[in-house]
């Protein structure tokens, strides 16, 4: 440790950015609970404690257990009164307070959080130091930190979202955030540089020089709580407690939700002998602390409470043995000043009992303690009001809206994402670039990692900054995006809204169709289907003599699920649904689109129903028969791809695509895709039955012939 404060309080919070080298992670690994000390066993009610005390007489251990119990159930005031009573009767040591302080801290923290007072955060500041972002690094989760804070704290998860961090060394400074921070808060950034110089001087034990540098820094960044806190720390070390207190109070004013400020304040107050206020500040620190271990703060609270109670009870003095009250104003009252000298040892139990006989075993009200606790509550309320109002100020004169333009679409950034190389784009723009290349469009660095992790976390800083300084433009940009999405979502609803067309194969209604998507244009197409929520597209088979090289009829494919590979390709599992006829063909962003009419089977006149039923049953029987006769390996292969023949639906003649088993048989029959296409486009169920009937008969005849041929060979 470079500096020791007044010999009384060990610095839990050393100078910012200076001491992690000396104290690596010591804060993180401490258990938050002290080990359970042997007690008299748990007694679960106030009455039981009071009865025990009345019947068996005063006992310091019972008092401490009682106080812990009261703190645990939220009776902090009563708990403190019990402790005060104990201090009146016994010589107490700080370690006896560990358990009760732990309970008090847990209770006040819980109480504060249950009332919704947590999670203060200004997104335009670093989540670690809460200061201006210095060398901003945007993590894959979209939260931005000072580079130094990330290194110093050696975070394993993001403090904001608990995202697990790995391999941070490859992440570069966020170019846009750095630019904007420098422009908006240049003074503070300069202040950080000076503050760092000051911290280095502190590390070299040059405290006087450090104060001077800190003074310069304070001119650039008068609101820098870290600077104020560090200066407070150094001033305190130099013995200037008053000045240290002033800086600590200023730090608290700048960041009322920042625990460390209260710690500095408490330390200064302790040196000034203001034990009550120090206790309050330490307790505030414990309530607000979010990340560091509470154990060290609890230790400080125990010490503060010890001083407070000792001074308080010594001022009461004792009346029953005629001793006059003994005021202690010295920093550390002598250990026995509050109790008769002969009773400070547990050995002289008889003498103690004698002495105690005139004293009540139960504590009395202590208005002074009540005031302390009320002041604490009042301070926390004040804190709440001050904290919720805090925002980092932006001078709109320093705003250049062009900073927030996407270099790819030339519009304002929408859902901005940041690459590991530190460049920001609209999410959809970058995704589209990644369809074509795995390099950053700006600096050409490989961003395979970004692609492989399939990130889409928006860079919070940029989004919030934009919404703050240019709300109207953000609303307009969002509207544009939504309009585009609506346009995509309306695909196929009417002839004006074209559907995207995938040209690869003949898809058949109800039949699954897995696709390997690797071409950039189809990656884009599939992504749009997913983002717009349509989850479907048209599939047409390629046709050399067809217009634009593909058939005029096709089937919609509904996306069931998508598995992505690390390089951005995907296996898209789809299933055929509606059939369509193309009205006109077009191209959009490299892929085909078309205006279509959806097909459904002609309505069957009631007088032909009998004929349909008869033919349907015949063909169905023939199909089953044929399938049964297939050689077993082929059959297994068919079953693994297409599963069992679907059973016949009730009223199958009313289904727009007809019965599903017919599509199943079309899919597995050894047919040329042109014949399949001709069946697909047919909207007369009767004619489809006739064609399939004919094909089945041919196939069965061929099958019957084949064994004979084989035999003759």
């Amino acid at each position, binding site marked *: 440790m470079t500096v020791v404060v007044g010999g009384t309080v060990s610095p839990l919070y050393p100078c910012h950015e200076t001491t992690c080298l000396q104290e690596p992670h010591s804060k993180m690994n401490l258990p938050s609970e002290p080990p359970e000390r042997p007690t008299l066993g748990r007694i679960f009610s106030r009455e039981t404690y009071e009865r025990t005390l009345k019947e068996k007489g005063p006992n310091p251990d019972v008092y401490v257990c009682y106080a812990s119990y009261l703190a645990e159930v939220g009776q902090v005031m009563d708990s403190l009164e019990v402790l005060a009573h104990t201090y009146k009767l016994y010589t107490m040591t700080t370690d006896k307070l560990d358990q009760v302080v732990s309970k008090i801290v847990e209770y006040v923290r819980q109480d504060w959080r249950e009332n919704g007072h947590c999670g203060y955060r200004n997104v335009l500041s670093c989540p670690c130091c809460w200061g201006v972002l210095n060398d901003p690094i945007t993590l894959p989760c979209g939260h931005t930190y000072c580079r130094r804070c990330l290194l110093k704290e050696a975070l394993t998860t993001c403090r904001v979202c608990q995202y697990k961090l790995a391999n941070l060394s490859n992440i570069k400074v966020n170019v846009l955030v750095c630019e904007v921070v420098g422009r908006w808060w240049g003074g503070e950034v300069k202040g950080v540089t000076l503050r760092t110089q000051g911290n280095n001087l502190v590390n070299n034990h040059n405290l006087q020089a450090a104060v001077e540098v800190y003074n310069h820094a304070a001119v650039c960044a008068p609101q820098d709580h870290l600077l104020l806190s560090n200066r407070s720390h150094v001033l305190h070390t130099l013995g200037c407690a008053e000045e240290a207190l002033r800086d600590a109070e200023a730090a608290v004013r700048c960041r009322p939700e920042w625990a460390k400020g209260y710690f500095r304040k408490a330390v200064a107050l302790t040196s000034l002998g203001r034990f009550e206020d120090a206790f309050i500040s330490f307790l505030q620190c414990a309530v607000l602390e979010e990340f560091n271990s509470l154990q060290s703060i609890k230790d400080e609270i125990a010490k503060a409470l010890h001083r407070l109670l000792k001074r308080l009870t010594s001022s009461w003095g004792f009346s029953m043995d005629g001793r006059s009250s003994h005021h202690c104003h010295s920093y550390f009252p002598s250990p026995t000043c509050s109790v008769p000298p002969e009773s400070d040892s547990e050995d002289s139990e008889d003498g103690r009992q004698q002495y105690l006989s005139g004293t009540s075993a139960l504590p009395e009200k202590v208005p002074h303690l009540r005031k302390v606790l009320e002041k604490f509550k009042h301070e926390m309320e004040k804190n709440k009001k001050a904290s919720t109002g805090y925002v980092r100020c932006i001078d709109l004169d320093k705003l250049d809206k062009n900073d927030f333009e996407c270099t*790819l679409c030339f519009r304002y950034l929408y859902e901005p994402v940041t690459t590991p190389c530190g460049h920001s784009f609209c999410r959809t723009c970058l995704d*589209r670039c990644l369809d074509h290349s795995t390099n950053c469009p700006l600096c050409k660095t490989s961003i395979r990692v970004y692609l492989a992790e399939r990130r889409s976390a928006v860079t919070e800083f940029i989004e919030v900054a934009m919404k703050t300084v240019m709300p109207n433009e953000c609303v307009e940009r969002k509207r544009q995006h939504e309009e585009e999405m609506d346009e995509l979502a309306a695909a196929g609803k009417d002839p004006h809204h074209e559907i995207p067309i995938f040209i690869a194969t003949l898809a058949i209604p109800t039949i699954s169709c897995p696709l390997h998507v690797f071409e950039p244009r189809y990656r884009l197409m599939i992504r749009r289907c997913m983002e717009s929520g349509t989850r479907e597209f048209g599939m047409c088979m390629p046709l050399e003599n067809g217009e634009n090289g593909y058939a005029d009829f096709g089937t919609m494919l509904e996306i069931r699920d998508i598995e992505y590979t690390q390089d951005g390709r995907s296996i898209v599992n789809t299933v055929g649904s509606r059939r369509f006829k193309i009205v006109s063909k077009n191209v959009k962003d490299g892929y085909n689109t078309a205006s279509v009419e959806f097909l459904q089977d002609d309505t069957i006149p009631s007088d032909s129903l009998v004929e349909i039923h008869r033919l349907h049953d015949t063909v169905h029987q023939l199909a089953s028969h044929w399938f049964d006769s297939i050689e077993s390996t082929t059959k297994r292969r068919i079953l693994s791809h297409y599963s069992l023949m679907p059973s016949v639906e009730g009223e199958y003649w009313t289904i727009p695509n007809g019965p599903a088993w017919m599509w199943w048989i079309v899919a597995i029959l050894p047919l040329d895709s042109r014949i399949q296409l001709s069946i697909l486009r047919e909207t007369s169920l009767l004619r489809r039955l006739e064609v399939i009937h004919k094909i089945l008969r041919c196939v069965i005849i061929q099958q019957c012939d084949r064994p004979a041929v084989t035999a003759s060979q």
Partner: protein
Amino acid sequence: MAAGLPRRIIKETQRLMAEPVPGISAVPDETNARYFHVVVAGPEGSPFEGGVFKLELFLPEEYPMSAPKVRFMTKIYHPNIDKLGRICLDILKDKWSPALQIRTVLLSIQALLSAPNPDDPLANDVAELWKVNESEAIRIAREWTRTYAMGN
């Protein structure tokens, strides 16, 4: 075309008009906003100085995902430009990035005129002469410039 002109093309055009690159003019065709009539002035100190070179630039459907197509219309004696006016420039091929723009492409072409690169030739005969007898190559380039690029 299915969709209207992408906003990016509209903005690029506006900016090219508002703040033109010195020595370069690019004007969209009246009937096709993706087709630009480009005129590049031969850079000072190069054998093309004093010449006015016409080019055509076309933004394909997939622009900016794919590079603009650019071609010299005026005959030019240059190792990286062939008889048909096709240009050998990496950013127009594999080094294209969607973050590049019409402006940056034209600047690169201007730079190519200032610094011919005979080691990565498109017109082999020109490149050969450029390497073997640079002063003769430069003389021919000047002559071509006078013949083809100065008659308004």
